[in-house]
């Protein structure tokens, strides 16, 4: 974890540093790089896209993912995780392009595309996190007289939590990347800067957008790794060390 922390900080510093460099000195005569103000606005848009889509994905994904592990709905668990796995094979570009004929272009269709895509890993991991718990643990909890709710709260949830958070982390990183593509349907965000640079064949502009997108992904990955570490029960961490 310490190694990851150091690497993340170094990477983020380099990316932000380079972005500042290109903002100040990236002019190529007839084209100017994006201004600091625009970068801030686009970054904020990007964060909004990811934040809203992720918020929805986490809310829906975790509730649905946990719900289908309950007795009575259990039969849904494996088809749903199957669909989620297949869904993740769809390239983000195809998904973004596929959403627009139905929902038009702009920020909202962007959110819809990102939501669908981010939902899958969250949903899958919530289900798998519960399903993968050793059945003898649940059996002994039941045999000792824990109610269903107690088993869920005290056994299943804490044991599944690291897997759930890791699903959120994966989904968020994926979402940051996909959000850059959402600029294709005018959703805004850092993708706009990249695409403008691309259409004008202007390297500085493309690099500004790309570096900030990557920086954002690395930052979120790092923060969520920290959360994952914090939320992993002590007894499970030890297990990993010993294995």
């Amino acid at each position: 974890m310490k190694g990851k922390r150091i690497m993340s900080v170094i990477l983020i510093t380099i990316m932000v540093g380079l972005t500042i460099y290109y903002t100040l000195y990236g002019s190529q005569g007839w084209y100017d790089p994006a201004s600091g103000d625009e970068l801030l606005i686009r970054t904020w848009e990007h964060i909004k896209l990811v934040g809203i889509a992720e918020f929805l994905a986490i809310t829906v994904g975790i509730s649905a993912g946990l719900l289908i592990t309950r007795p009575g709905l259990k039969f849904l668990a494996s088809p749903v995780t199957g669909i989620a796995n297949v869904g993740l094979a769809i390239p983000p570009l195809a998904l973004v392009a596929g959403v627009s004929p139905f929902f038009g272009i702009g920020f909202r269709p962007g959110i819809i595309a990102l939501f669908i895509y981010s939902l899958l890993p969250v949903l899958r991991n919530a289900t798998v996190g519960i399903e993968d718990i050793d059945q003898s643990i649940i059996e002994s909890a039941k045999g000792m007289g824990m109610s269903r709710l107690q088993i869920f709260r005290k056994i299943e949830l804490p044991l599944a939590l690291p897997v759930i958070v890791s699903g959120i982390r994966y989904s968020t990183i994926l979402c940051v990347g996909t959000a850059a593509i959402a600029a294709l349907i005018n959703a805004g965000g850092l993708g706009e800067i990249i695409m403008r640079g691309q259409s004008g064949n202007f390297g500085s502009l493309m690099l500004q957008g790309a570096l900030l997108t990557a920086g954002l992904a690395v930052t979120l990955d790092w923060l969520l790794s920290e959360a994952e570490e914090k939320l992993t029960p002590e007894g499970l961490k030890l297990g990993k060390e010993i294995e």
Partner: protein
Amino acid sequence: MIKLENVSKIYPDGTEAVRDISLQIQEGELCVLLGPSGCGKTTTMKMINRLIPITEGKIYIDGTDNQELDENELRRDIGYAIQEIGLFPHMTVAENIATVPHLKGWTKKEARNRADELLELMGMDPAEHMDKYPVELSGGQRQRVGVARSLGANPPIMLMDEPFGAIDPITRDSLQDEFLKIQAEIQKTIVFVTHDINEAIKMGTKIALLKDGELIQYSPPAELLAQPKNQFVRDFVGADRTLKSMRLMRARDAMKSSPKTVSVDSDIGEVREEMESSDVDYLIVTDDSGRFQGWIRAADLDGESVDSMEEVLSRDVGSVGRETALSDALSVMLEEDVANIPVLGNDNVLEGILTFNDLQQVIGETYTEEGGGRQVTG
């Protein structure tokens, strides 16, 4: 007391897992449900704490129909230990053991004290193990914690499904011994599931042998061995049932008590006289408090030069305890190459002597007495 009355389990697809089983388990008894896999032993056990719903019949626990109780309350009063143990990996040993006490609303302190007490009982140092996580324990230790956890709230009844099944034979053997000692102390009413005939004989007060969901024979282990009801039982207990009954009988069952002894302080001349007058070729030597000191053999006294006890006393000889199984006593005899062996009680006090002849006789007697016959022992 647990009473099963015409209990059946029929699954919706028509499979009859358990067919019309009736049996009673008295307080403080350890009843082994024994049988090949698929015989319905685990199903029968799980109907007692209602992990599997009963189809027909009744199960009474201390006179109360178990269907009338709240299922979670019922389970909290019945200890439950399974082969896979199922310790909660995210909780410490103490937290695991405190599961049921916690559910029953004990205070943190009470629960922790109980965990301390139970670890002590299971032969694990509480200070060292209380705050460890299951992953830090060895297989045998986990099994012990599993049993400790099932004893958490001191339930009068325990269900144990092959609780020593997943560990190596040596550890299993010592866990069985330890558990028998504990059981002698705590006197729980236990339903113990196993497919291992040797474990059943060792652990059981009574054995219920099941086959295809039916109860074939329900008797104490010695009776199961000596009087198998039919060919299935005979096959299941195996051709070596003589040996198995030796495992059941204890040194105290076959020993001669108050054998001839001489004091370690006696004069060598007295010893010679004693031997000649009682016409024996050996004497047991004890000290003033009756503690075993060694043997003196007549052969060693032949030379005239012997003039002190020390010279002829053989101290390093095998001995057995009162509760040693006859099979173990026999193997000590064979190992030490002796035909008689002292039986010692606490603090090495001599309780009696076990001879090869006694051994032979006792085994022979049980067989003729109980009508088992010898024809199948070959």
